[in-house]
């Protein structure tokens, strides 16, 4: 699909996000005979986990690993399903009336749907350390995208830092690709081990056990792993030169060309929240998640959320949630052609199988509070507007009780990323300063466009041509 003009004015089902959840949802919906469109702002489908799966130069399967290549099947299925694939199509707004603002090729229009499935996935959790805005510091997801899309690996002295399965996966991918890692600074708090043990039995029976062991073996055999890291500073003027890290032995400093940070992923809530979908604070995963029923329906009629955007659970569960949401849409709109009950059961079994062991991962890799909420006032929390932790604490001292008043006083969250890099930090910082829960503090009030579009595009929206609807010349 080449351009905006090829999009129909209305669809039965619009799926936003072409990662595993979106791919599976669009496939099922289209196979049921519903007029389906799958929108994604990236040039090709796959989302983050299957990024560049149709175009990657890294064809040696063992480098990216078997789990990555599972995605190829999903792409084949959606391409054969009859769903319309619109790549390079940004959904910048969704209204409660299920009207979607889409930008493609520099132009925008509104399109209607009878059901919408949001599958916008996850983002990396912010990792606000000293110097994290220096060139040379990058997220693990970012470095991994470079590997997948372009076959690029960081060269020179490379340090990985943080916690979580993706850190280990990426370390393994790098090493398998032949890159060198100077050290992995592991920030998994020792305090997590005991609470994690409770979930160990399920993990031992899960598909993640074997994968985890294999990854660990590959990485620990070939890279220096320093555990119990409690502090990280990226140092340099204008670019990263060194990294300082704190362990029980005190602060140590090493030369560094690339610092790759990761402490888990969190749902990308911007589109869902901008629609007014209710969210709640998940105290286990330490993020906001949408309030959904068993098949993904949100608090806004006709809109479901599937995949990691519904709560972090990995790619296999994302697929199945996508299918559940599609089944619900099919049920609501009257499509069919296959046994819904049998499908639901099979999906249920797959969900159970892949859910086993997740709670262990959640418990083990829960990032430490000082890594989520910087203790030092000088650390930048909002990268876009350059607002520090200290300024936010001061604003709370002035009487701001939540992120929206803090935002209006300091501009944090007003930059182009719309709070994606700072929102969770700001909420947790305010919660800590006030001594209340993040649930009570809340999150930024988000509005469309959930990503910037040009004023000219907005001005030429076909629906705006019908006269100044409410715009006033006084």
């Amino acid at each position, binding site marked *: 699909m080449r351009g905006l003009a090829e999009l129909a004015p209305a669809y039965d089902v619009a799926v936003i996000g072409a990662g595993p959840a979106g791919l599976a949802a669009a496939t099922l919906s289209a196979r049921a005979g519903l007029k389906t469109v799958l929108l994604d702002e990236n040039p090709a489908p796959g989302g983050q986990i299957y990024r560049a799966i149709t175009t990657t*130069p*890294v064809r040696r399967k063992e480098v990216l690993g078997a789990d990555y290549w599972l995605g190829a099947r999903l792409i084949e299925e959606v391409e054969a399903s009859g769903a319309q694939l619109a790549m390079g199509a940004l959904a910048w707004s969704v209204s409660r009336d299920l009207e979607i603002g889409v930008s493609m090729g520099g132009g925008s229009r509104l399109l209607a749907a009878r059901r919408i499935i949001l599958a916008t996935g996850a*983002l*990396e959790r912010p990792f606000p350390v000293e110097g994290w805005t220096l060139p040379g510091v*990058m997220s693990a997801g970012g470095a991994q995208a470079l590997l997948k899309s*372009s076959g690029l690996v960081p060269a020179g002295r490379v340090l990985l830092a943080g916690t979580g399965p993706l850190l280990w996966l990426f370390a393994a991918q790098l090493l398998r690709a032949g890159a060198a890692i100077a050290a992995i600074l592991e920030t998994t708090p020792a305090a997590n081990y005991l609470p994690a043990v409770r979930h160990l039995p399920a993990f031992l029976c899960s598909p993640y056990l074997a994968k985890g062991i294999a990854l660990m073996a590959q990485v620990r055999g070939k890279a220096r792993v320093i555990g119990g890291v409690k502090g990280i500073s990226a140092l340099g003027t204008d670019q990263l030169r060194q990294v300082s890290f704190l362990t029980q032995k005190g602060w140590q400093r090493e030369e560094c060309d690339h610092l790759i940070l990761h402490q888990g992923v969190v749902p990308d809530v911007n589109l869902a929240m901008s629609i007014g979908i209710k969210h709640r604070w998940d105290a286990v995963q330490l993020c906001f998640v949408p309030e959904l029923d068993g098949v993904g329906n949100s608090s806004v009629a006709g809109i479901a959320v599937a995949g990691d955007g519904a709560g972090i659970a990995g790619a296999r569960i994302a697929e199945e949630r996508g299918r559940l949401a599609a089944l619900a849409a099919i049920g609501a709109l009257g499509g069919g052609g296959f046994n819904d009950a049998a499908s639901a059961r099979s999906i249920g079994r797959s969900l159970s199988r892949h859910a086993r062991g997740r709670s262990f991962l959640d418990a083990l890799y829960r990032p430490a509070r000082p890594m989520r909420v910087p203790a030092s006032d000088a650390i930048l929390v909002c990268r876009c507007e350059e607002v520090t932790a200290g300024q936010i604490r001061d604003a709370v001292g002035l009487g701001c009780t939540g992120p929206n008043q803090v935002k209006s006083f300091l501009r944090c969250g007003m930059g182009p990323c719309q709070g994606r890099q700072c929102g969770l930090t700001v909420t947790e910082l305010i919660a800590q300063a006030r001594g209340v829960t993040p649930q009570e503090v809340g999150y930024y009030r988000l509005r469309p466009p959930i990503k910037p579009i040009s004023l000219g595009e907005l001005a030429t929206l076909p629906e705006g041509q019908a006269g100044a609807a409410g715009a006033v010349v006084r």
Partner: protein
Amino acid sequence: MFARLPEADARPVVAVTVDGVRVCARQGDTVAAALLAAAFRHCRTSPVGGAPRAPYCMMGACFECLVQVDGVPNRQGCLLVVREGMQIATQHGKREAGR
């Protein structure tokens, strides 16, 4: 700096310019990837405080990779695939009115 895996290096070259300098990107590179592969340490300076910034998330969420492409400023480099002859420019501070 970033090194290209041999299988990636063997891909067709896509010639672009960055700040007037010819850069040999590879087919399938995003603009951000091409910049990093060509050892550009930063792609812009912040319009707020002037500090140099470089691509961070590579997935369209962080807006650090903003560059000017074919005369249009503030494009997210990680979401654009390079094309032969593309003119890329690093950015300094706020964009100018009228450009």
